[in-house]
C-alpha cells in the first residue's frame, strides 16, 4: 500500500499548501475568526499529511500500484479531503452542524458547487468564499490527477484510452504515471492561468477574478457564483422566494457582457478534453482539435440545445421581455453552463417552462468531453453508445454480418464497448436509486430526481430547477448526497470495485 499512502500524502500536502491562499485572503480582509479557523486547519492537515507520508515509508516500496490500492485511493480521497475541508466552516462558526459543513465541503471538492448551509454564501466571509473556490479547483485537479493515473487501471476508464490514443501510455508503474500526471497538471494549471487572465480582462478585481477562475475552470459553479463575483447585495436564500407569489423583487445580478463572455469561454474550454489539448499543443496542430469526433459532437449538442431553448424562450411572454437576441444569449450561456456541468446561470432558470428545464436536465447527463473535469456521462461515451445501438440494429437485420464500431476511423475494441454499455447501466441505476433514497426526505419525486442528478453529475444548479434547497435536507440526506457526489466523481464503478474488495476480504477473514 506504499503508493496509496504516498499519493494520499501528496494530495494532502498540496491541500495544506493551498490553504495558505485563503489564509492570506483572511489576513488581507482582516477576517480574524476565519483566519484562525484556517490556520488550525492548516496545522491539522499538515499533521495528517505527515502521518500519511510516514505510513508510506513504513510500507514496503514497490513502485507499482495494484488495482486494490488504486480503487481505495480514488474512493478514500474525497471523504478524507472533505473532512479536512469542512474544518474551516465548522471552526469559524458559519456552519450549524457537521453534516452541512461536510456536505458543502464535499460538494466543493467534487465540483458540484452546492452549498448545504443555511447561511447564504453571499454573507460568508471572503476568505471562506475563496476557500470554497480553492477546494473546487483542488477537486478538479484531483480528478484530473486520478483520471490520468489511477482511474484507467481501476475502472478501465470506459473509453478515455479511445481519445488519448497514442499519446498517453497508461501504466500502473509509478514513473510512467508521473509522466502523464505532469502533463495533466500542467494543462490544468495553464488553463486556470488563462481563465484568470480572461476574468481580469473582463474587469473583475484580482481576488474575484481568481475566485471565478478557480470555480469556473473546475466546473464547480452554482447559481450564486456570479453574485459572489459581483458582490451585489443579498442573494435570495433560495429561488422559491421568487416562484411563490410571483413577486420578482429580488433580481439576478446581471453580469456584464464581458464577464459572461469570459465565463462562457472558460466553461467551454473547461469541458474540452485536456489530454487532447495537450496533444494539440505539443504537436502545434489545430487539426487534431478540428477533426476530433467528440469535439464536433459536443458543438453539435450545444447548437441543438441552444436552438431548442431559443425557440421556446423567445416564444415566452410570461417571464419578462425576452427579445430574440436576449433569448439566444440566455439559451447559449445556459446550455453551455449545464452541458459543462458548471452550473453558472445568467437567467432565472427556475422560472423557465418545464420543457426548457427538462432540456437543461438532460444536458447535465450528457456532460462535457471525456478527459475534462466535467461530470455526466461524457460525450465520447454517448457517441460510442449511439453507434453501438446503430450497429445493433444492423446486426438485427443481418445477423451474420460482422459489424465494427469505429471512432475517429479506428475500431473500438469489443471489451471497451462492453464496458461502456455496462457503465451506462450502472450510472442510470445509481441515479435512480439515489433519487429513491432522497425521495424519503423530499416533498416530491421530481425534486429528488433533480437533486440526485445534481449530485451524481456534479452540477449543483440542477437542484435549483426545483424548489427544495439542499440546506433544508435532514442531516442523513446530506450525508447520502455526499456519497452520491463521490460516486459520481469516481464514475460509480470504482466505488463498486472497493465494495467488491471489502466483501472479498470480509469473506476471507470470516
Amino acid at each position, binding site marked *: 500500500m506504499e503508493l496509496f499512502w504516498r499519493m494520499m500524502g501528496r494530495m494532502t500536502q498540496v491541500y495544506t499548501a493551498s490553504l495558505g491562499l485563503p489564509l492570506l485572503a483572511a489576513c488581507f480582509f482582516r477576517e480574524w475568526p476565519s483566519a484562525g479557523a484556517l490556520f488550525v486547519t492548516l496545522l491539522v492537515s499538515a499533521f495528517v499529511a505527515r502521518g500519511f507520508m510516514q505510513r508510506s515509508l513504513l510500507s514496503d516500496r514497490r513502485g507499482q500500484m495494484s488495482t486494490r490500492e488504486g480503487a481505495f485511493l480514488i474512493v478514500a480521497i474525497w471523504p478524507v479531503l472533505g473532512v479536512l475541508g469542512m474544518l474551516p466552516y465548522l471552526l469559524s462558526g458559519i456552519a450549524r452542524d457537521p453534516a452541512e459543513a461536510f456536505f458543502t465541503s464535499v460538494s466543493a471538492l467534487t465540483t458540484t458547487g452546492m452549498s448545504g448551509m443555511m447561511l447564504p454564501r453571499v454573507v460568508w466571509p471572503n476568505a471562506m468564499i475563496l476557500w470554497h473556490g480553492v477546494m473546487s479547483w483542488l477537486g478538479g485537479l484531483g480528478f484530473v490527477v486520478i483520471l490520468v493515473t489511477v482511474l484507467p487501471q481501476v475502472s478501465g476508464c470506459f473509453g478515455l484510452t479511445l481519445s488519448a490514443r497514442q499519446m498517453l501510455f497508461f501504466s500502473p508503474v509509478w514513473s510512467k504515471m508521473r509522466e502523464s500526471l505532469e502533463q495533466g497538471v500542467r494543462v490544468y494549471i495553464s488553463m486556470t492561468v488563462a481563465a484568470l487572465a480572461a476574468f481580469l480582462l473582463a474587469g473583475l478585481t484580482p481576488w474575484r477574478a481568481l475566485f471565478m477562475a478557480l470555480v469556473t475552470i473546475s466546473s464547480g459553479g452554482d447559481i450564486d457564483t456570479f453574485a459572489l463575483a459581483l458582490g451585489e447585495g443579498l442573494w435570495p436564500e433560495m429561488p422559491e422566494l421568487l416562484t411563490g407569489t410571483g413577486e420578482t423583487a429580488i433580481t439576478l445580478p446581471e453580469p456584464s457582457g464581458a464577464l459572461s463572455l469570459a465565463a462562457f469561454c472558460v466553461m467551454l474550454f473547461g469541458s474540452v478534453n485536456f489530454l487532447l489539448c495537450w496533444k494539440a499543443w505539443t504537436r502545434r496542430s489545430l487539426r487534431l482539435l478540428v477533426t476530433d469526433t467528440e469535439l464536433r459532437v459536443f458543438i453539435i449538442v450545444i447548437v441543438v440545445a441552444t436552438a431548442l431553448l431559443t425557440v421556446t424562450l423567445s416564444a415566452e411572454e410570461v417571464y419578462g421581455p425576452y427579445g430574440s437576441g436576449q433569448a439566444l444569449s440566455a439559451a447559449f450561456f445556459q446550455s453551455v453552463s449545464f452541458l459543462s456541468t458548471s452550473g453558472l446561470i445568467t437567467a432565472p432558470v427556475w422560472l423557465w417552462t418545464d420543457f426548457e428545464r427538462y432540456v437543461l436536465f438532460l444536458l447535465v447527463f450528457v456532460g462535457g468531453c471525456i478527459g475534462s473535469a466535467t461530470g455526466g456521462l461524457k460525450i465520447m461515451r454517448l457517441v460510442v453508445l449511439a453507434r453501438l445501438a446503430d450497429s445493433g440494429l444492423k446486426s438485427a437485420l443481418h445477423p451474420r454480418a460482422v459489424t465494427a464500431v469505429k471512432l475517429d476511423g479506428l475500431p473500438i475494441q469489443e471489451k471497451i464497448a*462492453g464496458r461502456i454499455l455496462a457503465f451506462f447501466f450502472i450510472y442510470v441505476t445509481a441515479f435512480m436509486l439515489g433519487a429513491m433514497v432522497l425521495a424519503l426526505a423530499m416533498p416530491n419525486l421530481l425534486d429528488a430526481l433533480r437533486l440526485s442528478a445534481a449530485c451524481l453529475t456534479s452540477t449543483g444548479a440542477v437542484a435549483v430547477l426545483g424548489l427544495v434547497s439542499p440546506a433544508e435536507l435532514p442531516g442523513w440526506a446530506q450525508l447520502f448526497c455526499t456519497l452520491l457526489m463521490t460516486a459520481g466523481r469516481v464514475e460509480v464503478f470504482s466505488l*463498486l470495485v472497493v465494495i467488491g474488495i471489502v466483501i472479498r476480504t470480509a469473506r476471507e477473514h470470516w
Partner: protein
Amino acid sequence: MQKRVILYVLGRLILAEAVVLLVPCGIAIYNQEHDAVSFLSAAMLAGVAGHAMLYHGNVRVESLSLREGIAITGLGWIMATALGMLPYVSGGYLGLLDGLFESISGFTGTGATVFPTLQGVPRSILFWRMMTHWFGGLGIIVIFIAILPQTGASAVYMYNAEGAGPTDERVLPRLSDMTKALFKLYLVFTLLAFLVYVLCGLRPFEALAHAMSTIGTGGFSTYDDNAMHFRNAWLEGWMTFFMILAGGNFALYYRVWHKGPRVLLHNTEFKAYLGIIGSACLLITLNLIFSQNLHPAEALRYSSFQVGSISTTGFVSADFEQWPPFAKGVLLLLMLGGGCAGSTASGMKISRLVMLAKNVWSIVRQKNSPRMVAAVRMNGVKVDEGIVERACQFFFLYIMFIMLWTLLLTADGISTFDALGLSVTTMGNIGPAFGIAGATQTYAGLSDFTKSVLCFSMLFGRLEILTLLVMCRPSFWRATTRW
C-alpha cells in the same frame, strides 16, 4: 424482400381478425345493441381486405428471411390496431385518433383509456376492449402461429420480432408446438381467473372481462374507477395473484407443468421477479405505515395490489397519487422493470435487468482478480456475451426513448414529472401514470400531439423497440437480390 409473401400472411392475419370481430358482434346481437352493425361492417371490411391481399399474395416462395418475419410482425401489429379501432370509430364513441389510441392501448396491453367515462358504453364495446387485451397480451403473432399453421421459416422470425425477450429459449423444439402449448396455458389461466372471480362474487360478464384483462396484463376495466369499484379484499388478493402470475414466463409454467415446481427454484429470473415484487411491496408498506399512518393490514393490501399491478397490468385499487414520493418512486422503477421475459407483460423485462446487474458485478470481480474468467450466469448456465451486449443496448435504447418521449411531451406543455410518468408507463405498457394521467384519471384530456406520441411509445414498448426501429431504416425495404 418478398413483398407478396408478406401480403399473403398479412391477409390471413386480417381474415383471422375478421373472425375475431364476429365475437363482440354476437354479444351485441344478444344484447340487442346497435353496435352489431359496426362490428359486422368492420368484420366485412377486414374480410374483403384480407381476401384481396390473399389474392395478390403468394405463398410459394422459398427462402423466407429475417426481414419478412420482422416486416410481417411490425406491419401486422399496425394493421391489427388500425382495424381494431373501427368499432370505436364507426360506433361514434371516439374520434379517429382516440379510437386508434384505444386500440393500440388495448392490443399492447397498456390499458390507458381515452373514454372519459365508461357509463353508457355498450357491453359489446367493453368486451371488444377486453378482447384486444387478450389477443395482444400473449401476442397477436403467437396466437396466430398457434392457431393457423404457418409455412416457411419466417414464423420463427415473426415470433422473435414480437418482443420475445432477450434469449430465444424454447421449451419445445417446434415453434408451432410451443406456441400451441403457450396458448393452451393462456386459455387455462384465463378460465381459472374467470372461475375465481366468479367465486369472489363478480357477475359472469365482469368476471370474464377482468379475467381477460388480468391474464393479458392489460388494465382495462368495465368501470371508471377500475378495481377500486369492487371494494372486495378477496377479489383484490386474487387479482394480485393472477397479475403476478401473468407477469411470469409462460414457457417456465409449461416446464413446471411437466417437471414439477422445483423448476421455479432454479430459474434466476423468476426468483428475481418475486424478490423484486416482495421487496417493493415491503418498502411501500413500511412507507405507507410510517408516512400515512395506515393500518399495517390495509397498507399491505394496497401496496401488494399496486405493486403486482404496476409491474405488469395497470389496475388500480388505491389512489397512489396521494402516496408519499418514495412509494411513487418505487412504482416508477417497477414500471421500468416490467415482467419476466416470455410473459404477457412488457417493460424492460426482469431477465435483462438481472443480466445487466450480473454483468456489472462480473466486471467488478474481474477487476479485483484479473485472472478470473467472470461470466454472466442465468439459471446456472453461462450466457452468451452477445446476448448480454444486446441486453445492454436494449437498456440504452429504452432509456433514450423514454427521454425522447418525455422531451416531446414536455414540449407539449405537460409538466416534467407527469411527462416522465406517461412515457415510462406507456413504454412499459402499464396504464396509469402520475398527475394528469394518474390513478384516477383517464387519458381523455390529453392533446392530440401527446396522444400520438404515446401511441408510438406503446408500440415501441410492446415490440421491444428493435422491430419498429429496424423497419425505419431505408435499407430494410430495399431488395437484397435484384435478379
